[in-house]
């Protein structure tokens, strides 16, 4: 559940600060408990931000800096105990990670490719289902409220409860899916494996889409409620049918929302750890070995935290690049449009 309807990733442009009076003044070095008015007005925004800033520093930024430092060290079982004393390795962790001819780099590349494919498929399907449902449920009809509640439930379930249920369904011998496909419909000659082998990719997509499409649905539903009724009325006067209205009004109107929605779905899906971990355990089948799990296994499974950190840093850089590129691309595409 997140806010996605502002049209830009950065919060809306600064508003003229009439209320605070006197415009921006830089923060002062010292704060006393009771601040003179002059200081208060300049320092107040910083004071208001301080708690958020402290938490972000403590939980996100400092650990990240430590993680980056670790990525330049040889942090194996021999040095784990006092990681500050672990020898520096310069870039060797990174060199191993990107040496795609050697098995370790090749495994990372495989996992990266699987993750990319998974992300593309899962995000597209989630978006497609969410959009379809949101459009079809734009108008009131009997049972709409109930249906909306049903659609949102998979997203509202705690992820572990949802994925455990899927693991139960996807068992080969006793699972529901094979019971339907094999026992009841007789579509396969042997029961299919869903949790090992190549089909695990399908399972992964299935579970991820099942869980994420309601989110796309919720956001788009919210966005579609903001389309002014007059636009549809005008279109009807022009003789546009339902399908044309969808194409000409509904879809273009939610474009700015889609821009952020797709980005958020992308980041969640790409970084997904929970679904594969809960579905397959720590060693996922190769066809479902998402990069987060691969890194986890490389850190905790083979006790090489320096190498694990280096891979995480590479992943972070990749995500930053993609996000920046995406924002640049989509905002250029929107230039001149009425937003």
């Amino acid at each position: 559940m997140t806010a996605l309807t502002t049209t830009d990733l950065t919060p809306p442009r600064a508003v003229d600060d009439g209320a605070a009076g006197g415009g921006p003044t830089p923060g002062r070095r010292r704060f006393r408990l009771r601040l003179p008015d002059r200081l208060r007005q300049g320092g107040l925004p910083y004071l208001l931000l301080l708690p958020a800033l402290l938490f972000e520093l403590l939980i996100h930024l400092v650990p990240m800096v430590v993680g980056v430092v670790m990525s330049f060290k040889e942090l194996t079982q021999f040095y784990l105990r006092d990681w500050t004393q672990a020898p520096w390795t310069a870039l060797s962790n990174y060199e191993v990670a990107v040496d795609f001819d050697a098995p370790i780099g090749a495994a990372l590349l495989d996992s990266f490719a699987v993750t990319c494919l998974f992300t593309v498929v899962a995000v597209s399907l989630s978006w497609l289902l969410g959009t379809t449902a949101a459009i079809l449920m734009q108008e009131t009809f009997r049972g709409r409220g109930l249906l909306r509640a049903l659609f949102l439930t998979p997203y509202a379930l705690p992820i572990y409860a949802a994925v455990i249920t899927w693991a139960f369904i996807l068992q080969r011998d006793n699972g529901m899916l094979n019971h339907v496909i094999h026992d009841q419909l007789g579509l396969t000659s042997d029961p299919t494996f869903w949790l090992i082998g190549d089909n695990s990719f399908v399972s992964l997509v299935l579970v991820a889409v099942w869980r994420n499409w309601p989110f796309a649905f919720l956001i788009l539903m919210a966005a579609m409620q903001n389309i002014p009724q007059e636009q549809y009325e005008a279109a009807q006067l022009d003789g546009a049918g339902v399908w044309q209205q969808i194409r000409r009004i509904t879809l273009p109107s939610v474009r700015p929302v889609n821009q952020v929605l797709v980005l958020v779905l992308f980041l969640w899906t790409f970084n997904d750890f929970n679904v594969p971990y809960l579905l397959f355990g720590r060693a996922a089948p190769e066809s479902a070995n998402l990069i987060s799990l691969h890194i986890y296994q490389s850190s905790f499974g083979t006790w090489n935290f320096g190498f694990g950190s280096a891979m995480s840093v590479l992943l972070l850089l990749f995500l930053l690049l993609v996000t920046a590129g995406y924002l640049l691309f989509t905002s250029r595409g929107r230039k001149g449009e009425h937003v």
Partner: protein
Amino acid sequence: MRRTRIARAAAVTAVLTAITATGCGGGSTSGGSNDNPDELTYWASNQGTSIEHDEEVLRPQLERFTEETGIEVNLEVVPWDSLLDRILTATTSGDGPDVLNIGNTWSASLQATGALLPFDEETFEAIGGSDRFVPSALAATGAEGQDPTAVPLYSLAYGLYYNKQLFAEAGIEEPPATWEELVEVGERLTDGDTYGLAVEGASIPENVHHAFVFGQQHGADFFDAEGNPTFDTPEAVAAIKQYIDFLAADGIVAPGNAEYAQNQSVSDFATGKAAMLLWQAAGTSLENQGMSPEDYGVAPVPFQAEPPAGGQAINSMVAGINIAVFDNTDNRDGALDFVEFMTSDETQRALNAEYGSIPPVATAQESEEFATEELTVLRETLAQSAAPMPQVPEESQFETLVGTAMAQLFADAAGGQEITEDAVRERLTAAQQQMQG
């Protein structure tokens, strides 16, 4: 971008905190202290049927310890899923328990971190001497030539469990003594939904334990004398192929076993879906699932009919749990008292009887609880034909990589692929190359 005060302040704080963080990583004083003599934190592994069960079993013992010494013990039973992660984070941060259980195969790996208290002669004296322990169990407490960093707590070995009724129905009188016999009776027992053997195909530790035994019988060691990995030798390939072939070629294992990782194979055996099972001390689990001891027999794990050159007469790993002391404990004497208490005859008898395992303390073994058919077989195996898993620092990686490779081979086999020697070798080579990271 313009640097602002906020950003600058953030950077300064980040650096300061990072420095604080680096200033006191891990414990650096060796051997612990006695600053906090009235309390101990103990991480127990999950030995019983559930975490709750473990707490019930351990609590009376801990109370007895508190009565004797006045030391309070804070018990935490850590699930296997998170035990190693917790130990690793504790090792790195220095924020761990005083005493803990470890899987004995991790001994050498954890020894290499230096986070565990070494048991030199003097330390061993403090807990009553090293000669109290069964030698084979003591062999799985760390690398050779170094002071062990753990002592044995519960011992286990693999046995071949067989369903007496299914054997009788198929007219089989004796449990198989060789793998060739096992395949042969397995084929006779496989009929419809019943299969000859159940395996835990997606379980990394189970896989790797079998890899070790088959490896020993084929003369494959997985590590050379210098401690370098040798996963893909012809012997290792033959060994692992033989195990995978139970499912892939011999057809005595149900294909569905390839996705088992939650002890479903034990359930299959208990419910008669499989006639044989290779397991360590399955007795309590089987009883829990309604299979009484009269219904099954236990025999030693088979050997090769014609041992290959260099093959060892080994049919089990030395399985079990060790107990260790964290090096930076603030109650060193209390921790050692606790280790002595846990390995005393009385505690050993009580706990091992409850868990269905074998006491690694020689004098405690003599008790009649451990004279059942099952435990006699396992005890003899342990004494005569069991060997410890490789005691090298990289053992944990070996488990993860080879165990995973085997799970993938099982998946390939169950998916209908032919498992050739080349296919096995390819997986093992890839696993070995991952070691050189």
